[in-house]
C-alpha cells in the first residue's frame, strides 16, 4: 500500500462518514459541519487525482461559499438557539427509497466499466499533465477555443473547439439569475413598505 492509496483511503472514509453523519445529525449547523468534512475530503480526493482546479473550485464554491451562506441564513432566521430538523417516518422511507435507487444506478454503472486497462492505455494515461504539473493551462486554453491536449489535425473532421460556447451560455445564465435575484429582493422590500 503506497502513500497515495493510503491517503485515498483516509479521505474516502472521511467523505463517506461525513455524509452519513449529515444524514443522522439533527441540528442544522452540525449538518453543515459534517458537510464541510465531507466536501472538504472530496476536494482532497480531487487534489489526489491531480485535478487541482476542480478541487479548489469545490472548496471555494461549496465549502467557502454555499455552506457559509447556509449557516449565515440559519443564524439570521432561526427562532430558537439551536435549530433542529425532525424527520418524519414517511420522509425516512422516501429518502431511503431514493437512496437505494441511486445506489443501484451507481453500482450498475460502476460494473459497466471495464477497469482493467490495456498496458498501452495505461502508459498513455500516466500523463504529461502530471509530469509537468501544468494542470491549469490546458483548461484555460480550451476556454479560449484551443485544445492543446487534443490533436485536431489528425482526425480531420472531429471538431471539438473547446468550451467557449458552453462557458458563455453559463455566464449569461448566471447574469440572468443575478438580475432575477435583485428584482425579487427589491419587489419584496416594496411590498413591505
Amino acid at each position, binding site marked *: 500500500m*503506497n*502513500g497515495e492509496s493510503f491517503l485515498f483511503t483516509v479521505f474516502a472514509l472521511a467523505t463517506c462518514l461525513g455524509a452519513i453523519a449529515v444524514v443522522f445529525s439533527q*441540528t442544522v*449547523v*452540525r449538518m453543515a*459541519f459534517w458537510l*464541510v468534512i465531507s466536501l*472538504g475530503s472530496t476536494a482532497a480526493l480531487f487534489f489526489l487525482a491531480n485535478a*487541482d*482546479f476542480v*478541487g*479548489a*473550485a469545490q*472548496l*471555494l464554491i461549496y*465549502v*467557502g*461559499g454555499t*455552506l*457559509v*451562506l447556509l*449557516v*449565515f441564513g*440559519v*443564524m*439570521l432566521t432561526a427562532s430558537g*438557539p*439551536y435549530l433542529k430538523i425532525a424527520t418524519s417516518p414517511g420522509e425516512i422511507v422516501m429518502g431511503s427509497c431514493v437512496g437505494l435507487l441511486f445506489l443501484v444506478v451507481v453500482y450498475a454503472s460502476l460494473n459497466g466499466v471495464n477497469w482493467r486497462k490495456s498496458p498501452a492505455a495505461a*502508459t498513455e494515461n*500516466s*500523463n*504529461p499533465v502530471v*509530469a*509537468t*504539473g*501544468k*494542470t*491549469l*493551462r*490546458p483548461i484555460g*486554453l480550451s476556454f479560449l477555443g*484551443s485544445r*492543446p491536449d487534443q490533436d485536431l489535425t489528425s482526425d480531420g473532421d472531429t471538431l471539438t473547439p473547446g468550451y467557449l460556447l458552453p462557458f458563455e451560455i453559463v455566464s449569461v445564465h448566471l447574469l440572468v439569475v443575478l438580475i432575477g435575484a435583485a428584482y425579487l429582493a427589491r419587489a419584496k422590500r416594496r411590498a413591505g413598505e
Partner: protein
Amino acid sequence: MMFAAQSIADFFQGFGGWQYVIAAIIHAVLLVHVFAVSPFAFIWLERKVSGRIQDRLGPTRVGGLFGWLQSLADGIKLVQKEDLCPSAADSMLFRSAPYIVCVSSFAAFMVLPFSHGWVAVAADCGLFIILAILSLEVFGIIMAGYSSGSKWSLFGGMREAAQMVSYEIPLAICALVPVIAAGSLNLGEVGGMQRGWFTNWFMFHDPFTFIAFFVYFVVATASCKRAPFDLAEAESELVGGFHTEYSGMRWSFFFMGEYASMFAVCGIASILFLGGWNTGLAPIDDALYAARNASIDGTSGSAAVGYLANVIGAGVFVAKASFGVFVQVWLRWTLPRLRIDQVMTTCLKYLVPISCFLFLGATLWPLIMVTGMGRTTWTSPIGDRAAQGLQETRDGNRVARISDAGNLDAAQARVGDTGHIGEGVVQ
C-alpha cells in the same frame, strides 16, 4: 518544481519507497514550525509596536532583549489555563471550531512558495487554491460564534460572516489584476517573472496594478479581521466577539490562525505585487539565479551554493511579508474601529467598484500601450521573462524523476507548445 522535496527524497534514496514519505514529513514539520514560530514573533511585535505607538515601553519585565520572552510567558500561561465549555454551548461544534480556523490557515502555507521552487505543493493554480483555503477560515469563526450559546458570540459570528462574504469579492478581483499582467495563476511562475530591477515588480507594471496593491492590502487586512475591520471581536461592544466563551489553548488557536493568515495574505501580496523572493536589484538577482541553475545542472559542490541562494531568497520573501504584517499592526494601533455599516459600505459601495475598475483598466492597459508605444509593457517584456522561467522549469523537470523516457519527451514537447502559445499571447 519540487526541488527541495526532490533533493530530500534523493537523500533518503535507500529507504525503499519511503523516501517521499520522509520528505513529506520533513516538509510538514518545517511548515508547522513556520506556522508556530511566526505568531510567536508577531505577538511580540504587536505588543511592542502598540507600546511604542502609545508612548509606552511595551513588554520589559519578562526578560530577554526587548522583552522577547513575553510570547513564551503568554504561551505557558495559555497552556496552563482550564479548557472551558459553557453549558449552553453545542459542545461538539464549540470544541472543533478552533481546529477549523487553525487547519485552514495552516493549509494555506502548502501552496505558498518561499523561494524559487521552495514550495510544498507547486500547483498550477496556486493562487486559486490558496484563496479557496483561506476562505474556509471564516467557517470556523462562524461556527465558534454560533455554537457558544452566547449573544455576544452570535453577533460576532454574524458580523464576521457578513464581512467575509462581501470582502472576498474585491480580494479575489484585486488578486486577479497582477495575474492579468503575468498570465499565470502559478505563484512560483508569477514570482519568477518579477526578477531583475524592481521596475519589473508587478506593482510597477501599470498604474492599475499600483492602485490594486493598496486596495488588495486594505481588503486583505479586512479579510484577516484586523483592526480597523475587527468587527467580529469588537471588544468595546461585544466583550470578545466570537471568542468570548473560549479560554486557554482553544482561544490561542484562533490567534495563531489570525497571525498565520496575516502572514499568508502578506506573502501573497509580496509574490503578486512586490517581486516575491527577488531582491529588486538586477545584478544580485541574476547572480542568485545563476547559482540556482548551476545547482540544478548538478555540477559538483554547487548544490550547497544553490541551496544558499534559495535561503537568501526565502529571507527576502519573509522580510517583505513580515513588513506587510508590521504595517497591519501599525494600522491597528493608529486607526479607530469602523462601525459595521461603515465596513459594509466601504466594501460594497467603494472597494468592489474600485476593484472592478482596476480589473477593466488592467485588461485595457496593454492595448493602450500597444497603440501608444508599440509594445505591451514599459519595462522588459513579460513574455521574455516568462520564457526564461519556463526554460528553468523545464530544466528542473528534466532532473525530476520521471520513469518513462518517452513520456518525458512528450511532456517537454507539450510544455514547449503551450509555452509558445503563452508567449504569443503575452507579447
